[in-house]
């Protein structure tokens, strides 16, 4: 079953948004729009394992809006792949979350 979270066109390019918690588990996720595409990851930094990544509501990206940054120790991740490219989570990747944009422009969580 898919749960509608928001509309894709509410996000500007280079913008991120925190979502959740899902399933009453406390697990949160975030989405990023880049070059017209949507990317979604669980809000859990692979450095410490399961800790939240933003420094403020929706603040998941660097100033240029071209990398995800963990606000715990500054590890930087590629938006497209979730791969850590510098910092404390080097060699590790973010875990994709089951969130996608539909043909109709809705952002949905697939449980």
């Amino acid at each position, binding site marked *: 079953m898919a749960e509608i979270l928001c509309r894709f066109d509410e996000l500007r390019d280079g913008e991120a948004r925190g979502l959740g918690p899902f399933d009453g588990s406390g697990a949160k996720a975030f989405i990023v729009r880049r070059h017209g595409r949507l990317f979604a990851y669980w809000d859990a930094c692979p*450095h410490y394992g399961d*800790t*939240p*990544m*933003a*420094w*403020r*509501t929706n*603040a998941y990206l*660097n*100033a240029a809006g071209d990398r995800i*940054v963990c*606000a*715990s*120790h*500054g590890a*930087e991740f590629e938006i497209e792949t979730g791969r850590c490219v*510098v*910092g*404390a989570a*080097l060699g590790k990747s973010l875990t994709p979350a089951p969130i996608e944009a539909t043909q109709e422009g809705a952002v949905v969580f697939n449980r």
Partner: protein
Amino acid sequence: MNIIGPDALVFGVDDIDACATYLTAYGLNPASVDAKGGRFEALDGTAIVIRRRGDPSLPPPLESGSMMRLIVYGVADRATVQAVGDELARDRQVQRLADGGIEAVDDHGFPLRFQVTNRRPLDLPGERINAPGAPAQRGVNHIGVWQDMPAKPRTLSHVVCFVPDIAAAEQFYVNRLGFKVTDRLGNAGPFLRPAGTQDHHTLFFIQTPPHMKGCEHFAFHMGGPTELMLAGTRFLKAGYQSFWGPGRHKFGSNWFWYFNSPLGCHVEYDADMDLHDDEWTPREAPMSPEASQAFLFEHREKWAPGGPPPPGAGKPGH
């Protein structure tokens, strides 16, 4: 050597605006801010300084990309600056600055500056409590808390770094700069106290692989646990991300509340740290959740007991 503690930490950041907003909301006073960066001060003038990552006035960054670029230590007097300079010049380059300060790197390559401290002496009451059996600290008709009670960071307390070689880090600060180990968390590292303060620690290390080398967090002292709780609650309500706390550490006894930050490290409020002198014998415990805190809480929304008023309540005629 009469080193007092960190006067300032200098960061080379990615997003000046984000850091300026953050440090101001945390409670530091933006003493000077422009497009190049700024200086954000606690009540005694100790500070976080931010510059752009590529600012040529900063020492070169660590390979790890950690944003902390310089630790500025305040010392008692010129003679101490001189003594530190002479000691470090024995095996490394020491830069003598026009203002009388010196710069050198520690054994992990962290740039350090030593200067005669520029802290302003504070004269403020601490948190006062009333307890049965003890003389009242807060007199009759003095209230303990109100909603917009001031809760500002008073002074820069400590900095915690990830380093690959704990033994080397400890030896450098103990043997070369006269720090004392107050306590040790096994597999993490030593709590270190310089000779010019009684604070349990102004420096702590956590052992990690080399690619993580950098700052884990820094903390400012608040006036007491109530100020810490108020400041943290306000920060959280403004949308900032709590990371750990509020709680109370065991070693040091300090209350803590950590937040994520755009400075590439955690930022902590702390309060009511233990004081020690050279009579103290260091304790040791393996690093674990149990050893790290006496208790730990998580914030929840404000709430009050009681449902809606009973039918007829508040009407005249009773």
